[in-house]
C-alpha cells in the first residue's frame, strides 16, 4: 500500500486556502440527506457534531458516558495555544508552526501543523463568542500564560479548568443542535465495530451500556473522535473510561494505525501512593511557570524540604537548560526527573518524586496571586495528598498522559478506509513524537470546528449514497463479531478479575515501553503480553449477562483490545531504532543523555496494518519532508 498524504504542494502559507477551494461542496438542500456518524463527544467529536449539524447534515453522535459533557476533554487544566500575538512578544502563525514541528522532534507532517497554527486564532474567537469565560486582564482583554517548549505567552486559559470550559462551549453548541433536531445523541452507547462495505466505511455497530442491546447504525461517513489510548498503562492521567476500542476495531477492519509507540509522559503528576491506586492525577504544566523543580544534591537526603538549605538543592532543569529552565518540553522534563530519581536524589516515601516549589513565587507575587492562578490545583493536591502546597513543596513524578500515535489520516483527516475520518487525540497527525502543552485542545477543536466540516463535504459530494438493510453481509458480520466477543468474555468464567489483568498489563507496558525503552526489554515485553493475554481469555471472570448494565463486561472488552494494542506499541518501539520525542531508546542517546534521532533512516511515519489474528502486522512508511523547519538536534539549553 502507498500512503498519500494529499497535502497540497506549493507555499505552505497558502496550502489550506488552496486546498479548501479545491474541495467539492454539498448542495445545502442535499445535506440533510447525508447521515454522518460521529463517535465521541469530546472537543473533537463535540465540535464536529455541532458544526456538521449546523451545516444541515443529519448527524448521529455517540458517547459512552451518560452525557456528552463528560468526555475526557473536560479534565484538561492548563490551557489552549493560539498564535494571536496579543502580547506583542513576537508570536506568529509561523512561530507556533515552528515550535510545534520542533517540539514534535521532526516527526510530524509540516502541512498539517501549519494549518493547525493558522486556524488556532479562529478557535479563540469561536470560544469567546460561545461564552467561554477565559481569564481576562483588568483592561478587559484576554490574558495569556506560557507553556513548555515556547518562549512566548500564547496560552489562553480559564483558571485551571480550560478543558472543562472549552468542552462546555462545544457541548452547549451540540445540545443546541440536539434541541433543534439536527443531531441525535446516543449517550451510554459504545461503538464496538465499524461496518466496511465495498471498501468504504458505511456505519457502526454499538452496544447500549444500559441494557446491552446491540444495534446497527448506517451512515454515509463515520467520524471517530474517541480520544487517546493512555489507559493501556492502567495508571495514567486519563479518565477511567478512556479506551482504544473504537480505533482498535477500526484497525482490525483495515485502517492503518500510525506511530503507536509515541506516547507522552507528563512530568508533573502526583506520585503513586499504593497498589490500590486506580489512576494518577496531573498537576498542570502551567505550574512550571511559577514553580521551581529541585531535588536534594545529596542522594538519599531524607530531611524535610524546608530544612535543606538553598546551597544543597539542585534546580536541575535550570542548571541543565538555562534558556528554557523549568519550561523545557515534557519529554525532556520527564526524563530528567527519572534520571534524578534513578541516581538516588528522589524524594518522598517511595523515592520516586521531585519537588515543585512555589515558595519563591509566593514571596515575589504574594499568596493571593498564586491562588488566583492555581488555586484549584493546589486544593486538588491538598485533597489527594493531605499536604498544603502553599507551605510545603509539591512532590511530583512523571506519568503517562497523552498518546501521539493513532489512526493514520491524510490531510483531509481521512483514514485508509474511505469514509472513515479520525479527529482529535484518536488520530496520529500534528504532534509528531512529542506534543507541546496546550496544543491537544487546539488540535481537537481545529479538527472538529474548522477542518472536518470542509473535508467531509468533499468526500460526500464524491461518493454515492447507498441504502443498506441490516441483512447486508458487512452489517451481519460486524454484529456477529461483536456478539462473539461478548459471549467469549462472559463464557470464560475463570478466576481473575478484569482489573487485575489490566493492572498487570499496565505494569509491563510502563516498565518496558514507558519512559525508556531498549530492544531486549521490548522483546521481553512482547512475550509477556502474549502470555498474559492468553491467560486472560481462559481465566478472566466477568459476571452477569450482556442484557444489563454490566460495568465488568464494558471493561473486559476494552482490556482485551489493550492487550493487542500494547503488543503493537512494543513492536513499533522495537522497529524505531532511534530516540525521538517521547520515544527514548536507551541505545540511541547523545553523550549528554539527550534523544538521538536518526533522520537518514527514520524520518517517516510508521503505519501498521492488521493482517489477521496471530499474524505479524504490515508496516507501511509515509516519508516525511521538511521544507520549512530544518531538522536539527533539539536544543533547549
Amino acid at each position, binding site marked *: 500500500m502507498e500512503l498519500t498524504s494529499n497535502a497540497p504542494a506549493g507555499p505552505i502559507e497558502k496550502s489550506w486556502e488552496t486546498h479548501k477551494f479545491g474541495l467539492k461542496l454539498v448542495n445545502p438542500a442535499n445535506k440533510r440527506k447525508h447521515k454522518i456518524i460521529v463517535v465521541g463527544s469530546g472537543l473533537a467529536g463535540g*465540535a464536529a457534531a455541532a458544526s456538521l449539524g449546523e451545516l444541515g447534515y443529519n448527524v448521529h453522535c455517540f458517547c459512552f*458516558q*451518560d*452525557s*456528552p*459533557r*463528560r468526555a*475526557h476533554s*473536560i*479534565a484538561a487544566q492548563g490551557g489552549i495555544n493560539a498564535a*494571536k500575538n496579543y502580547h506583542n512578544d513576537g508570536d506568529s502563525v509561523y512561530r507556533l508552526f515552528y515550535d510545534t514541528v520542533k517540539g514534535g522532534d521532526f516527526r510530524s507532517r509540516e502541512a498539517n501543523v501549519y494549518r493547525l497554527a493558522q486556524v488556532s486564532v*479562529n478557535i479563540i*474567537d*469561536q*470560544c*469567546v*463568542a*460561545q*461564552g467561554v*469565560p*477565559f481569564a*481576562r*486582564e*483588568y483592561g478587559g*482583554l*484576554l490574558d495569556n500564560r506560557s507553556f513548555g517548549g515556547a518562549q512566548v505567552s500564547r496560552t489562553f486559559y*480559564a483558571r485551571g*479548568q480550560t478543558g*472543562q*470550559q472549552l468542552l*462546555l462551549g462545544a457541548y*452547549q*453548541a451540540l*445540545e*443546541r443542535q440536539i*434541541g433543534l433536531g439536527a443531531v441525535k*445523541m446516543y449517550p451510554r452507547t459504545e461503538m464496538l465495530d465499524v461496518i466496511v462495505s465495498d471498501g468504504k466505511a458505511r456505519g457502526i455497530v454499538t452496544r447500549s451500556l444500559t441494557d446491552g442491546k446491540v444495534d446497527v447504525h448506517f451512515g454515509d461517513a463515520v467520524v471517530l473522535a474517541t480520544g487517546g489510548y493512555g489507559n493501556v498503562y492502567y495508571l495514567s492521567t486519563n*479518565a*477511567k473510561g478512556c479506551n482504544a476500542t473504537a480505533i482498535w476495531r477500526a484497525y482490525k477492519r483495515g485502517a492503518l494505525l500510525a506511530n503507536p509507540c509515541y506516547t507522552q509522559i507528563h512530568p508533573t503528576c502526583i506520585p503513586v*501512593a*499504593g497498589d*490500590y*491506586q*486506580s*489512576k494518577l*492525577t496531573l498537576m498542570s504544566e502551567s505550574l512550571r511557570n511559577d514553580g521551581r523543580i529541585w531535588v536534594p544534591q545529596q542522594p538519599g537526603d531524607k530531611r524535610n524540604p524546608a530544612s535543606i538549605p538553598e546551597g544543597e538543592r539542585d534546580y536541575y532543569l535550570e542548571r541543565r537548560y538555562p534558556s528554557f529552565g523549568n519550561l523545557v518540553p515534557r519529554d525532556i522534563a520527564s526524563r530528567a526527573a527519572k534520571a534524578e530519581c534513578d541516581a538516588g536524589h528522589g524524594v518522598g516515601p517511595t523515592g520516586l518524586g521531585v519537588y515543585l516549589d512555589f515558595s519563591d513565587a509566593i514571596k515575589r507575587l504574594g499568596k493571593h496571586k498564586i491562588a488566583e492562578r492555581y488555586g484549584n490545583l493546589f486544593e*486538588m493536591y491538598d*485533597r*489527594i495528598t*493531605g499536604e498544603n502546597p502553599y507551605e510545603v513543596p509539591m512532590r511530583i513524578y512523571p506519568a503517562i498522559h497523552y498518546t501521539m500515535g493513532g489512526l493514520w489520516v491524510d490531510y483531509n483527516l481521512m483514514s485508509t478506509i474511505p469514509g472513515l475520518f479520525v479527529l482529535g487525540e484518536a488520530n496520529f497527525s500534528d504532534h509528531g513524537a512529542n506534543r507541546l502543552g496546550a496544543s491537544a485542545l487546539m488540535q481537537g477543536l481545529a479538527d472538529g*470546528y474548522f477542518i472536518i466540516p470542509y473535508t467531509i463535504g468533499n468526500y460526500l459530494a464524491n461518493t454515492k449514497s447507498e441504502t443498506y438493510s441490516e441483512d447486508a453481509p458487512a452489517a451481519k458480520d460486524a454484529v456477529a463479531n461483536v456478539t462473539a466477543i461478548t459471549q467469549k468474555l462472559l463464557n470464560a468464567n475463570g*478466576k481473575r*478479575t478484569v*482489573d487485575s489483568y489490566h493492572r498487570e498489563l499496565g505494569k509491563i507496558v510502563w516498565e518496558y515501553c514507558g519512559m525508556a525503552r531498549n530492544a531486549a526489554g521490548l522483546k521481553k515485553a512482547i512475550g509477556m503480553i502474549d502470555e498474559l493475554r492468553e491467560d486472560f481469555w481462559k481465566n478472566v*471472570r466477568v*459476571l452477569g449477562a450482556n442484557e*444489563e*448494565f454490566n*460495568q*465488568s463486561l464494558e471493561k473486559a472488552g476494552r482490556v482485551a483490545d489493550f492487550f493487542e494494542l500494547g503488543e503493537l506499541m512494543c513492536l513499533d518501539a522495537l522497529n524505531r531504532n532511534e530516540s525521538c520525542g517521547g520515544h527514548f531508546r536507551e541505545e540511541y542517546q547523545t553523550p549528554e543523555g539527550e534523544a538521538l534521532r536518526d533522520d537518514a533512516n527514520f524520518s517517516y511515519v510508521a503505519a501498521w496494518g492488521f493482517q489477521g489474528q496471530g499474524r505479524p502486522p504490515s508496516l507501511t512508511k509515509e516519508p516525511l519532508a521538511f521544507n520549512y523547519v530544518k531538522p536539527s538536534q533539539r536544543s533547549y539549553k
Partner: protein
Amino acid sequence: MKLTLHVWRQKNAQDRGRMFRYEVPGVNEHMSFLEMLDVLNERLIEKGEDPIAFDHDCREGICGMCGMMINGKAHGGFKGTTVCQLHMRHFKDGDELYLEPWRAAAFPVIKDLAVNRSSFDRIIAAGGFISVPTGSAPDGNAIPVRKLDADLAMDAAACIGCGACVAACPNSAAALFVGAKISHLAHLPQGQPERDRRALAMIRQMNREGFANCSNIGECEAACPKEIKLEVIAQSNADYIKAAFTERPETAIGGAG
C-alpha cells in the same frame, strides 16, 4: 481500618431495590472513596457476587459523573469535594456508612448507585447556550469583558452537572444547576442577546422534567462540590421574571426579498 457499608442494591429501573450490608476490612487512609469501593468490588467478584455499580470517569472532580449519598449527604458532605476526590483519611475504623443513589423523580435509577441524569442535558438543549454558528465569531478581543464579570461568569460556569444539588434538596429542585448556567452566560456581553429567551426556555424545561420548585432552603449550596452560590438562583429568578413580563410573540414573519 475496617468499615461496614450498607449499600443500595437495585438490579435495574424496574427492580424495587434494598440495602445490603458489607464488611470492608483493610481500608487504607490514602485510598479515595471510589478506590475503597473498587477494592470491595474486586472481593465481591472473587466471591462470585455481582459488583456494585456506580458511575465515575475522571476521578478528578471535574467530569461530574460520580455521585452518591453517603449517610444522607450528597458526595459525603465534605466542603468542595466530589465523592471521587474524597479520601478515606476522613473516616475512622469501625465507621458504618449508608450508600444510596441520588433520589429524585427526574433521576431514575439505572442500577445500584447509578442514575439517569439526561434531564439535565435536555434543560441545556432548551436554551443553555449562545447561538454562534461555527466560523461566524468576531475577534476574541473585539469586546472587552470586565475582569470581575469574567470571574463571576467563571464561578458559575464551574458547575459540573453532577446533580448533587437536586439530591440534597428536599424538593428535588434543580434551581442551582439551572441558575449556574443562566448566571454564567448572563455575566458576559456575549450572553445578552438571548438572555431572556434562555431563562424562559431553561426554566420551563426544568418544570417539564419534573423538578419541583425552589423554596430557598439552601441545602443545594451546602452540597455543591463546586461551591456554586445561591445567588445564581436569585439571578436566574430575576431574569425569568423580567423575561416573563416582557415576553412578546415573535414578529416579522418572513424576510425581505
